Protein backbone atom coordinates (compact mmCIF):
# COMPACT_ATOMS: atom_id res chain seq x y z
CA UNK A 1 0.00 0.00 0.00
CA UNK A 2 2.78 2.36 0.95
CA UNK A 3 4.49 1.62 -2.34
CA UNK A 4 1.32 2.41 -4.30
CA UNK A 5 1.00 5.74 -2.54
CA UNK A 6 4.66 6.47 -3.14
CA UNK A 7 4.23 5.64 -6.82
CA UNK A 8 1.19 7.85 -7.05
CA UNK A 9 3.11 10.65 -5.38
CA UNK A 10 5.93 10.32 -7.88
CA UNK A 11 3.44 10.16 -10.74
CA UNK A 12 1.83 13.40 -9.72
CA UNK A 13 5.18 15.14 -9.31
CA UNK A 14 6.54 13.97 -12.65
CA UNK A 15 3.35 14.92 -14.45
CA UNK A 16 3.60 18.31 -12.79
CA UNK A 17 7.13 18.69 -14.15
CA UNK A 18 5.94 17.77 -17.62
CA UNK A 19 3.13 20.31 -17.45
CA UNK A 20 5.49 23.01 -16.22
CA UNK A 21 7.86 22.22 -19.08
CA UNK A 22 5.07 22.70 -21.58
CA UNK A 23 3.95 25.94 -20.01
CA UNK A 24 7.38 27.38 -20.71
CA UNK A 25 6.24 27.83 -24.26
CA UNK A 26 3.10 29.74 -23.57
CA UNK A 27 2.28 31.14 -26.98
CA UNK A 28 2.86 27.86 -28.62
CA UNK A 29 0.71 26.07 -26.12
CA UNK A 30 -2.14 28.51 -26.60
CA UNK A 31 -2.08 28.17 -30.37
CA UNK A 32 -1.91 24.41 -30.30
CA UNK A 33 -4.59 24.12 -27.66
CA UNK A 34 -6.81 26.26 -29.83
CA UNK A 35 -6.08 24.09 -32.85
CA UNK A 36 -6.85 20.99 -30.87
CA UNK A 37 -10.02 22.46 -29.50
CA UNK A 38 -11.51 22.67 -32.95
CA UNK A 39 -10.93 19.02 -33.70
CA UNK A 40 -13.85 17.66 -31.77
CA UNK A 41 -16.27 20.10 -33.40
CA UNK A 42 -14.66 19.45 -36.76
CA UNK A 43 -14.98 15.71 -36.25
CA UNK A 44 -18.43 15.56 -34.82
CA UNK A 45 -20.31 18.21 -36.73
CA UNK A 46 -20.14 16.55 -40.15
CA UNK A 47 -21.48 13.37 -38.61
CA UNK A 48 -24.19 15.36 -36.96
CA UNK A 49 -25.17 16.81 -40.34
CA UNK A 50 -25.09 13.39 -41.87
CA UNK A 51 -27.32 11.63 -39.40
CA UNK A 52 -29.67 14.61 -39.42
CA UNK A 53 -29.98 14.36 -43.20
CA UNK A 54 -31.07 10.77 -42.73
CA UNK A 55 -33.23 11.41 -39.71
CA UNK A 56 -31.58 8.75 -37.61
CA UNK A 57 -29.53 5.61 -37.92
CA UNK A 58 -31.26 2.23 -37.66
CA UNK A 59 -33.39 3.39 -34.78
CA UNK A 60 -30.67 5.36 -33.05
CA UNK A 61 -31.34 9.06 -32.60
CA UNK A 62 -28.84 11.88 -32.91
CA UNK A 63 -28.65 12.28 -29.16
CA UNK A 64 -27.89 8.60 -28.67
CA UNK A 65 -25.12 8.80 -31.25
CA UNK A 66 -23.80 11.88 -29.52
CA UNK A 67 -23.73 9.82 -26.32
CA UNK A 68 -21.63 7.14 -27.98
CA UNK A 69 -19.33 9.76 -29.41
CA UNK A 70 -18.97 11.64 -26.15
CA UNK A 71 -18.10 8.48 -24.27
CA UNK A 72 -15.46 7.13 -26.61
CA UNK A 73 -13.92 10.50 -27.31
CA UNK A 74 -13.60 11.30 -23.60
CA UNK A 75 -11.81 8.00 -23.00
CA UNK A 76 -9.49 8.32 -25.94
CA UNK A 77 -8.67 12.00 -25.54
CA UNK A 78 -7.81 11.40 -21.89
CA UNK A 79 -5.36 8.64 -22.73
CA UNK A 80 -3.96 10.52 -25.66
CA UNK A 81 -3.04 13.29 -23.28
CA UNK A 82 -2.01 11.25 -20.29
CA UNK A 83 0.01 8.48 -21.88
CA UNK A 84 1.86 10.48 -24.49
CA UNK A 85 5.10 8.91 -23.27
CA UNK A 86 3.97 5.56 -24.67
CA UNK A 87 3.05 7.06 -27.99
CA UNK A 88 6.56 8.46 -28.38
CA UNK A 89 8.14 5.29 -27.10
CA UNK A 90 9.76 4.30 -30.39
CA UNK A 91 11.99 7.38 -30.54
CA UNK A 92 12.76 7.10 -26.83
CA UNK A 93 13.93 3.56 -27.35
CA UNK A 94 16.22 4.57 -30.17
CA UNK A 95 17.66 7.52 -28.23
CA UNK A 96 18.48 5.39 -25.26
CA UNK A 97 16.11 7.09 -22.88
CA UNK A 98 14.90 3.67 -21.78
CA UNK A 99 18.32 2.99 -20.26
CA UNK A 100 17.92 6.02 -18.07
CA UNK A 101 14.57 4.72 -16.85
CA UNK A 102 16.12 1.36 -16.06
CA UNK A 103 18.76 3.13 -14.01
CA UNK A 104 16.21 4.59 -11.62
CA UNK A 105 14.84 2.55 -8.74
CA UNK A 106 11.24 2.72 -9.96
CA UNK A 107 9.09 0.75 -12.34
CA UNK A 108 9.64 1.53 -16.00
CA UNK A 109 5.93 1.60 -16.86
CA UNK A 110 5.35 4.12 -14.10
CA UNK A 111 8.14 6.31 -15.43
CA UNK A 112 6.94 6.15 -19.01
CA UNK A 113 3.39 6.89 -17.98
CA UNK A 114 4.53 9.83 -15.87
CA UNK A 115 6.95 11.13 -18.43
CA UNK A 116 4.71 13.39 -20.42
CA UNK A 117 1.20 14.68 -20.03
CA UNK A 118 0.15 16.54 -23.13
CA UNK A 119 -2.07 19.06 -21.43
CA UNK A 120 -3.46 20.66 -24.53
CA UNK A 121 -5.42 17.47 -25.10
CA UNK A 122 -7.49 18.47 -22.10
CA UNK A 123 -9.27 20.83 -24.47
CA UNK A 124 -10.45 17.81 -26.40
CA UNK A 125 -11.57 16.09 -23.26
CA UNK A 126 -13.54 19.16 -22.29
CA UNK A 127 -15.30 19.27 -25.65
CA UNK A 128 -16.04 15.59 -25.60
CA UNK A 129 -17.57 16.06 -22.17
CA UNK A 130 -19.59 18.95 -23.55
CA UNK A 131 -21.05 16.81 -26.32
CA UNK A 132 -21.64 14.10 -23.75
CA UNK A 133 -23.32 16.52 -21.39
CA UNK A 134 -25.70 17.73 -24.04
CA UNK A 135 -26.53 14.18 -25.02
CA UNK A 136 -27.20 13.18 -21.42
CA UNK A 137 -29.43 16.18 -20.95
CA UNK A 138 -31.42 15.56 -24.13
CA UNK A 139 -31.81 11.88 -23.28
CA UNK A 140 -32.74 12.63 -19.71
CA UNK A 141 -30.62 9.85 -18.30
CA UNK A 142 -31.23 8.86 -14.71
CA UNK A 143 -28.68 7.96 -12.06
CA UNK A 144 -28.47 4.41 -13.29
CA UNK A 145 -27.84 5.61 -16.82
CA UNK A 146 -25.17 8.00 -15.62
CA UNK A 147 -23.46 5.22 -13.71
CA UNK A 148 -23.31 3.17 -16.89
CA UNK A 149 -21.92 6.11 -18.84
CA UNK A 150 -19.24 6.60 -16.21
CA UNK A 151 -18.43 2.88 -16.31
CA UNK A 152 -18.18 3.05 -20.07
CA UNK A 153 -15.79 5.99 -19.94
CA UNK A 154 -13.67 4.32 -17.29
CA UNK A 155 -13.54 1.05 -19.23
CA UNK A 156 -12.75 2.87 -22.43
CA UNK A 157 -9.90 4.67 -20.74
CA UNK A 158 -8.45 1.35 -19.62
CA UNK A 159 -8.87 -0.06 -23.11
CA UNK A 160 -7.13 2.79 -24.89
CA UNK A 161 -4.40 2.77 -22.28
CA UNK A 162 -3.92 -0.89 -23.14
CA UNK A 163 -3.70 -0.17 -26.86
CA UNK A 164 -1.13 2.55 -26.34
CA UNK A 165 0.97 0.45 -23.97
CA UNK A 166 0.77 -2.48 -26.36
CA UNK A 167 1.82 -0.20 -29.19
CA UNK A 168 4.84 0.85 -27.16
CA UNK A 169 5.62 -2.76 -26.32
CA UNK A 170 5.78 -3.70 -30.00
CA UNK A 171 8.48 -1.07 -30.43
CA UNK A 172 10.84 -3.43 -28.63
CA UNK A 173 10.53 -5.72 -31.61
CA UNK A 174 9.81 -3.46 -34.54
CA UNK A 175 11.41 -0.12 -33.65
CA UNK A 176 8.81 2.26 -34.98
CA UNK A 177 7.88 0.65 -38.22
CA UNK A 178 4.43 -0.45 -37.22
CA UNK A 179 3.38 2.64 -35.33
CA UNK A 180 0.48 3.25 -37.69
CA UNK A 181 -1.30 0.07 -36.73
CA UNK A 182 -1.88 1.56 -33.33
CA UNK A 183 -3.68 4.44 -35.05
CA UNK A 184 -6.09 1.99 -36.55
CA UNK A 185 -7.23 0.92 -33.10
CA UNK A 186 -7.20 4.32 -31.49
CA UNK A 187 -8.28 6.85 -34.11
CA UNK A 188 -9.95 4.24 -36.27
CA UNK A 189 -11.51 2.53 -33.31
CA UNK A 190 -12.95 5.71 -31.89
CA UNK A 191 -14.28 6.64 -35.32
CA UNK A 192 -15.95 3.25 -35.63
CA UNK A 193 -17.35 3.41 -32.12
CA UNK A 194 -19.06 6.71 -32.76
CA UNK A 195 -21.83 4.58 -34.18
CA UNK A 196 -23.56 1.59 -32.66
CA UNK A 197 -21.74 -1.61 -33.47
CA UNK A 198 -25.05 -3.08 -34.62
CA UNK A 199 -24.97 -1.11 -37.86
CA UNK A 200 -21.91 -2.88 -39.15
CA UNK A 201 -21.93 -6.01 -41.25
CA UNK A 202 -21.81 -9.36 -39.53
CA UNK A 203 -18.14 -10.14 -39.93
CA UNK A 204 -17.04 -6.66 -38.90
CA UNK A 205 -19.30 -6.84 -35.88
CA UNK A 206 -17.84 -10.18 -34.88
CA UNK A 207 -14.27 -8.95 -35.17
CA UNK A 208 -15.05 -5.86 -33.13
CA UNK A 209 -16.85 -7.83 -30.43
CA UNK A 210 -14.96 -11.09 -30.09
CA UNK A 211 -11.69 -10.31 -31.82
CA UNK A 212 -10.56 -6.91 -30.68
CA UNK A 213 -13.11 -6.14 -27.96
CA UNK A 214 -13.89 -2.62 -29.12
CA UNK A 215 -17.61 -3.11 -28.55
CA UNK A 216 -16.97 -3.26 -24.82
CA UNK A 217 -15.55 0.24 -24.80
CA UNK A 218 -18.73 2.27 -25.17
CA UNK A 219 -21.35 0.27 -27.04
CA UNK A 220 -22.38 -2.20 -24.36
CA UNK A 221 -22.30 0.32 -21.50
CA UNK A 222 -24.35 2.68 -23.68
CA UNK A 223 -26.87 -0.07 -24.37
CA UNK A 224 -27.21 -0.57 -20.65
CA UNK A 225 -27.56 3.16 -20.00
CA UNK A 226 -30.27 3.42 -22.65
CA UNK A 227 -31.98 0.21 -21.54
CA UNK A 228 -31.59 -1.24 -25.01
CA UNK A 229 -29.49 -4.28 -24.18
CA UNK A 230 -32.25 -6.80 -24.72
CA UNK A 231 -33.62 -4.98 -27.75
CA UNK A 232 -30.19 -5.20 -29.34
CA UNK A 233 -30.19 -8.92 -28.78
CA UNK A 234 -27.71 -9.23 -25.92
CA UNK A 235 -28.18 -10.94 -22.57
CA UNK A 236 -28.31 -8.59 -19.60
CA UNK A 237 -24.95 -9.61 -18.16
CA UNK A 238 -22.91 -8.53 -21.19
CA UNK A 239 -22.54 -4.83 -20.27
CA UNK A 240 -21.28 -5.94 -16.87
CA UNK A 241 -18.40 -7.64 -18.66
CA UNK A 242 -17.14 -4.35 -20.07
CA UNK A 243 -14.96 -3.20 -17.19
CA UNK A 244 -13.62 -6.73 -16.80
CA UNK A 245 -12.72 -7.08 -20.45
CA UNK A 246 -11.07 -3.68 -20.53
CA UNK A 247 -9.08 -4.41 -17.41
CA UNK A 248 -8.06 -7.75 -18.87
CA UNK A 249 -6.76 -6.09 -22.01
CA UNK A 250 -4.79 -3.63 -19.90
CA UNK A 251 -3.17 -6.41 -17.88
CA UNK A 252 -2.27 -8.23 -21.08
CA UNK A 253 -0.68 -5.06 -22.45
CA UNK A 254 1.29 -4.60 -19.28
CA UNK A 255 2.57 -8.15 -19.51
CA UNK A 256 3.56 -7.62 -23.14
CA UNK A 257 5.49 -4.51 -22.17
CA UNK A 258 7.29 -6.33 -19.38
CA UNK A 259 8.19 -9.06 -21.84
CA UNK A 260 9.50 -6.52 -24.30
CA UNK A 261 11.56 -4.92 -21.58
CA UNK A 262 13.07 -8.28 -20.70
CA UNK A 263 13.99 -8.79 -24.32
CA UNK A 264 15.55 -5.34 -24.46
CA UNK A 265 17.65 -6.11 -21.42
CA UNK A 266 19.01 -9.25 -22.96
CA UNK A 267 19.69 -7.96 -26.44
CA UNK A 268 20.48 -4.32 -25.86
CA UNK A 269 19.79 -1.65 -28.44
Amino acid at each position, binding site marked *: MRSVLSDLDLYVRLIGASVRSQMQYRLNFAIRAFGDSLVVIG*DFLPLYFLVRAFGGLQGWTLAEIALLYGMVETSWATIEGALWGFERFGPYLIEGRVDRWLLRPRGVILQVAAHWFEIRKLGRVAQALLVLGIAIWVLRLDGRGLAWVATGIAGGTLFFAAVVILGAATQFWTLGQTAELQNMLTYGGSAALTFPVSIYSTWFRRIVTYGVPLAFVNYFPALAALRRTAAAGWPAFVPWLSPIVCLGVLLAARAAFAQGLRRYESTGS
Partner: protein
Amino acid sequence: MSFVGSVRAYLQFARCAFQRRAAYRLANWTGIAVNFFFFLVHAQLFVALFGTRGTVAGWQAAEAVRYFATSEALLMVLGVMSTQTGLEFAERVRSGDVAVDLVRPVRLWARYVAESYGSAAYYVLMRASILYVAAVALYGLALPLNPEVLLAPLSIALGVAMAATLMYLASASAFWTEQAHGPLSVLLVAIFFFGGIAVPLDFYPAPARLVADLLPFRGAVYTPVALASGKLRGVALLFGLLHQIGWLGVLVLVAQRIEQRGAAHLAVHGG
Protein backbone atom coordinates in the same frame (compact mmCIF):
# COMPACT_ATOMS: atom_id res chain seq x y z
CA MET B 1 18.66 30.57 -63.44
CA SER B 2 17.18 29.72 -66.81
CA PHE B 3 13.66 28.46 -67.08
CA VAL B 4 14.81 25.02 -68.17
CA GLY B 5 17.21 24.96 -65.29
CA SER B 6 14.43 25.79 -62.89
CA VAL B 7 12.19 23.11 -64.29
CA ARG B 8 14.96 20.59 -63.92
CA ALA B 9 15.48 21.66 -60.33
CA TYR B 10 11.82 21.21 -59.51
CA LEU B 11 11.70 17.82 -61.18
CA GLN B 12 14.63 16.86 -59.03
CA PHE B 13 12.77 17.91 -55.90
CA ALA B 14 9.77 15.92 -57.00
CA ARG B 15 11.89 12.88 -57.64
CA CYS B 16 13.58 13.14 -54.28
CA ALA B 17 10.24 13.33 -52.55
CA PHE B 18 9.12 10.26 -54.46
CA GLN B 19 12.19 8.32 -53.42
CA ARG B 20 11.90 9.38 -49.83
CA ARG B 21 8.41 7.94 -49.66
CA ALA B 22 9.48 4.82 -51.48
CA ALA B 23 11.98 4.05 -48.76
CA TYR B 24 9.29 3.44 -46.15
CA ARG B 25 7.72 0.33 -47.54
CA LEU B 26 6.46 -1.22 -44.35
CA ALA B 27 5.05 2.08 -43.17
CA ASN B 28 3.22 2.39 -46.47
CA TRP B 29 1.55 -0.97 -46.04
CA THR B 30 0.45 -0.26 -42.51
CA GLY B 31 -0.82 3.09 -43.76
CA ILE B 32 -2.84 1.28 -46.41
CA ALA B 33 -4.33 -0.89 -43.70
CA VAL B 34 -5.34 2.17 -41.70
CA ASN B 35 -6.87 3.88 -44.75
CA PHE B 36 -8.77 0.73 -45.62
CA PHE B 37 -10.09 0.42 -42.12
CA PHE B 38 -11.49 3.94 -42.23
CA PHE B 39 -13.02 3.18 -45.60
CA LEU B 40 -14.74 0.11 -44.18
CA VAL B 41 -16.15 2.07 -41.29
CA HIS B 42 -17.55 4.83 -43.48
CA ALA B 43 -18.81 2.50 -46.16
CA GLN B 44 -20.72 0.38 -43.69
CA LEU B 45 -22.02 3.50 -42.01
CA PHE B 46 -23.50 4.70 -45.24
CA VAL B 47 -24.97 1.33 -46.13
CA ALA B 48 -26.61 1.28 -42.70
CA LEU B 49 -27.82 4.87 -43.00
CA PHE B 50 -29.39 4.33 -46.38
CA GLY B 51 -30.98 1.11 -45.27
CA THR B 52 -33.86 0.63 -47.66
CA ARG B 53 -33.95 4.21 -48.84
CA GLY B 54 -33.18 5.00 -52.44
CA THR B 55 -31.85 8.51 -52.72
CA VAL B 56 -30.99 10.98 -50.00
CA ALA B 57 -29.67 14.47 -50.74
CA GLY B 58 -29.20 13.36 -54.31
CA TRP B 59 -26.99 10.41 -53.39
CA GLN B 60 -27.50 6.68 -53.60
CA ALA B 61 -25.86 4.14 -51.32
CA ALA B 62 -23.49 2.80 -53.97
CA GLU B 63 -22.42 6.30 -54.94
CA ALA B 64 -21.66 7.13 -51.33
CA VAL B 65 -19.52 4.04 -50.90
CA ARG B 66 -17.70 4.89 -54.09
CA TYR B 67 -17.14 8.41 -52.81
CA PHE B 68 -15.41 7.03 -49.74
CA ALA B 69 -13.35 4.58 -51.68
CA THR B 70 -12.13 7.47 -53.79
CA SER B 71 -11.68 9.72 -50.78
CA GLU B 72 -9.57 7.32 -48.76
CA ALA B 73 -7.61 6.34 -51.84
CA LEU B 74 -6.79 9.95 -52.66
CA LEU B 75 -6.15 11.26 -49.17
CA MET B 76 -2.42 10.67 -49.20
CA VAL B 77 -2.18 11.68 -52.84
CA LEU B 78 -3.73 15.04 -52.04
CA GLY B 79 -1.58 15.30 -48.98
CA VAL B 80 -4.34 16.18 -46.57
CA MET B 81 -4.13 13.32 -44.16
CA SER B 82 -1.43 14.53 -41.87
CA THR B 83 0.60 17.52 -40.93
CA GLN B 84 3.86 15.68 -41.37
CA THR B 85 5.25 17.43 -44.44
CA GLY B 86 4.07 20.76 -43.11
CA LEU B 87 5.85 20.14 -39.84
CA GLU B 88 9.04 19.12 -41.63
CA PHE B 89 8.99 22.35 -43.53
CA ALA B 90 8.29 24.36 -40.41
CA GLU B 91 11.18 22.63 -38.70
CA ARG B 92 13.49 23.66 -41.53
CA VAL B 93 12.37 27.23 -41.08
CA ARG B 94 12.90 27.05 -37.38
CA SER B 95 16.36 25.59 -37.60
CA GLY B 96 17.37 28.08 -40.24
CA ASP B 97 18.02 25.51 -42.95
CA VAL B 98 15.52 27.32 -45.06
CA ALA B 99 17.87 30.28 -45.32
CA VAL B 100 19.87 28.14 -47.69
CA ASP B 101 16.76 27.52 -49.74
CA LEU B 102 15.94 31.20 -49.89
CA VAL B 103 19.38 31.98 -51.21
CA ARG B 104 19.01 29.51 -54.02
CA PRO B 105 17.11 30.91 -56.99
CA VAL B 106 14.26 28.52 -56.39
CA ARG B 107 10.94 29.59 -55.03
CA LEU B 108 10.38 27.99 -51.70
CA TRP B 109 6.70 27.58 -52.27
CA ALA B 110 7.32 26.08 -55.70
CA ARG B 111 9.73 23.61 -54.22
CA TYR B 112 7.14 22.60 -51.69
CA VAL B 113 4.58 22.05 -54.41
CA ALA B 114 7.07 20.11 -56.52
CA GLU B 115 7.75 17.81 -53.60
CA SER B 116 4.03 17.35 -53.09
CA TYR B 117 3.69 16.21 -56.66
CA GLY B 118 6.56 13.82 -56.25
CA SER B 119 5.00 12.26 -53.21
CA ALA B 120 1.56 12.32 -54.86
CA ALA B 121 2.97 10.31 -57.76
CA TYR B 122 4.24 7.72 -55.33
CA TYR B 123 0.93 7.48 -53.55
CA VAL B 124 -1.03 7.17 -56.76
CA LEU B 125 1.02 4.12 -57.59
CA MET B 126 1.46 2.58 -54.18
CA ARG B 127 -1.63 3.52 -52.27
CA ALA B 128 -4.50 4.98 -54.23
CA SER B 129 -4.56 2.25 -56.82
CA ILE B 130 -4.31 -0.56 -54.27
CA LEU B 131 -6.96 0.91 -52.00
CA TYR B 132 -9.35 1.67 -54.84
CA VAL B 133 -9.07 -1.77 -56.37
CA ALA B 134 -9.56 -3.43 -52.99
CA ALA B 135 -12.61 -1.31 -52.22
CA VAL B 136 -14.18 -1.86 -55.61
CA ALA B 137 -13.58 -5.59 -55.35
CA LEU B 138 -14.97 -5.86 -51.84
CA TYR B 139 -18.16 -3.96 -52.53
CA GLY B 140 -18.59 -4.88 -56.16
CA LEU B 141 -18.71 -1.22 -57.06
CA ALA B 142 -19.47 -0.10 -60.55
CA LEU B 143 -16.79 2.15 -61.92
CA PRO B 144 -17.93 5.66 -62.78
CA LEU B 145 -18.30 5.69 -66.54
CA ASN B 146 -19.46 9.22 -67.26
CA PRO B 147 -17.15 11.20 -69.54
CA GLU B 148 -16.62 13.92 -66.93
CA VAL B 149 -14.41 11.53 -65.02
CA LEU B 150 -11.74 12.13 -67.65
CA LEU B 151 -11.22 15.53 -66.10
CA ALA B 152 -10.41 13.90 -62.77
CA PRO B 153 -6.62 13.89 -63.20
CA LEU B 154 -6.72 17.61 -63.87
CA SER B 155 -8.83 18.26 -60.82
CA ILE B 156 -6.62 16.04 -58.70
CA ALA B 157 -3.54 17.86 -59.90
CA LEU B 158 -5.17 21.17 -59.01
CA GLY B 159 -6.16 19.69 -55.66
CA VAL B 160 -2.59 18.65 -54.89
CA ALA B 161 -1.38 22.16 -55.65
CA MET B 162 -4.10 23.71 -53.52
CA ALA B 163 -3.46 21.44 -50.56
CA ALA B 164 0.29 22.00 -50.86
CA THR B 165 -0.11 25.76 -50.99
CA LEU B 166 -2.47 25.76 -48.02
CA MET B 167 -0.02 23.65 -46.04
CA TYR B 168 2.79 25.94 -47.11
CA LEU B 169 0.91 28.97 -45.87
CA ALA B 170 0.16 27.34 -42.55
CA SER B 171 3.69 26.15 -41.98
CA ALA B 172 5.11 29.49 -43.15
CA SER B 173 3.86 30.85 -39.86
CA ALA B 174 7.09 29.32 -38.59
CA PHE B 175 8.87 32.33 -40.07
CA TRP B 176 7.34 34.40 -37.30
CA THR B 177 6.42 32.05 -34.49
CA GLU B 178 8.62 29.20 -33.38
CA GLN B 179 6.42 26.34 -34.43
CA ALA B 180 3.68 25.75 -36.92
CA HIS B 181 1.76 23.00 -35.16
CA GLY B 182 -1.16 25.24 -34.26
CA PRO B 183 -1.91 26.69 -37.69
CA LEU B 184 -1.35 23.28 -39.29
CA SER B 185 -3.82 21.57 -36.97
CA VAL B 186 -6.39 24.27 -37.60
CA LEU B 187 -5.84 23.85 -41.33
CA LEU B 188 -6.32 20.12 -41.13
CA VAL B 189 -9.57 20.56 -39.24
CA ALA B 190 -10.75 23.11 -41.80
CA ILE B 191 -9.93 20.76 -44.65
CA PHE B 192 -11.65 17.89 -42.89
CA PHE B 193 -14.76 19.92 -42.21
CA PHE B 194 -15.08 22.10 -45.29
CA GLY B 195 -13.47 19.65 -47.64
CA GLY B 196 -15.93 16.89 -47.04
CA ILE B 197 -13.47 14.16 -46.21
CA ALA B 198 -15.82 12.18 -44.01
CA VAL B 199 -19.16 13.43 -45.25
CA PRO B 200 -19.90 14.70 -48.77
CA LEU B 201 -20.81 18.36 -48.75
CA ASP B 202 -24.26 17.64 -50.18
CA PHE B 203 -25.33 16.42 -46.77
CA TYR B 204 -24.50 19.67 -45.09
CA PRO B 205 -27.32 22.07 -44.24
CA ALA B 206 -27.57 24.98 -46.66
CA PRO B 207 -25.73 27.67 -44.66
CA ALA B 208 -22.76 25.38 -43.98
CA ARG B 209 -22.78 24.30 -47.62
CA LEU B 210 -22.65 27.89 -48.76
CA VAL B 211 -19.64 28.66 -46.59
CA ALA B 212 -17.90 25.51 -47.77
CA ASP B 213 -18.46 26.46 -51.40
CA LEU B 214 -16.93 29.86 -50.85
CA LEU B 215 -13.84 28.75 -48.95
CA PRO B 216 -10.85 27.21 -50.74
CA PHE B 217 -10.82 23.91 -48.83
CA ARG B 218 -13.32 22.05 -50.96
CA GLY B 219 -10.97 22.49 -53.86
CA ALA B 220 -8.39 20.39 -52.10
CA VAL B 221 -10.69 17.44 -51.44
CA TYR B 222 -14.34 17.55 -52.39
CA THR B 223 -14.02 18.70 -55.97
CA PRO B 224 -11.44 16.13 -57.11
CA VAL B 225 -12.94 13.28 -55.09
CA ALA B 226 -16.53 13.92 -56.16
CA LEU B 227 -15.41 14.31 -59.74
CA ALA B 228 -13.36 11.14 -59.69
CA SER B 229 -16.25 9.19 -58.22
CA GLY B 230 -18.52 10.42 -60.97
CA LYS B 231 -20.74 12.62 -58.85
CA LEU B 232 -19.80 15.99 -60.29
CA ARG B 233 -21.32 16.90 -63.61
CA GLY B 234 -22.53 19.74 -65.75
CA VAL B 235 -22.78 23.13 -64.06
CA ALA B 236 -21.60 21.83 -60.72
CA LEU B 237 -18.49 20.48 -62.39
CA LEU B 238 -17.82 23.77 -64.09
CA PHE B 239 -18.20 25.62 -60.84
CA GLY B 240 -15.93 23.15 -59.10
CA LEU B 241 -13.11 23.54 -61.60
CA LEU B 242 -13.39 27.32 -61.76
CA HIS B 243 -13.43 27.39 -57.97
CA GLN B 244 -10.22 25.37 -57.90
CA ILE B 245 -8.45 27.49 -60.48
CA GLY B 246 -9.60 30.77 -58.99
CA TRP B 247 -8.66 29.91 -55.46
CA LEU B 248 -5.37 28.38 -56.50
CA GLY B 249 -4.47 31.66 -58.15
CA VAL B 250 -5.32 33.61 -55.03
CA LEU B 251 -3.40 31.23 -52.79
CA VAL B 252 -0.32 31.34 -55.00
CA LEU B 253 -0.29 35.13 -54.89
CA VAL B 254 -0.57 35.08 -51.11
CA ALA B 255 2.20 32.49 -50.96
CA GLN B 256 4.51 34.74 -52.98
CA ARG B 257 3.89 37.67 -50.66
CA ILE B 258 4.40 35.53 -47.58
CA GLU B 259 7.65 34.28 -49.00
CA GLN B 260 8.98 37.75 -49.56
CA ARG B 261 7.93 38.83 -46.11
CA GLY B 262 9.27 35.66 -44.55
CA ALA B 263 12.65 35.99 -46.23
CA ALA B 264 12.86 39.60 -45.09
CA HIS B 265 11.97 38.62 -41.56
CA LEU B 266 14.62 35.91 -41.49
CA ALA B 267 17.20 38.32 -42.83
CA VAL B 268 16.48 40.67 -39.96
CA HIS B 269 16.05 38.21 -37.14
CA GLY B 270 18.25 35.40 -38.27
CA GLY B 271 17.38 31.72 -38.46
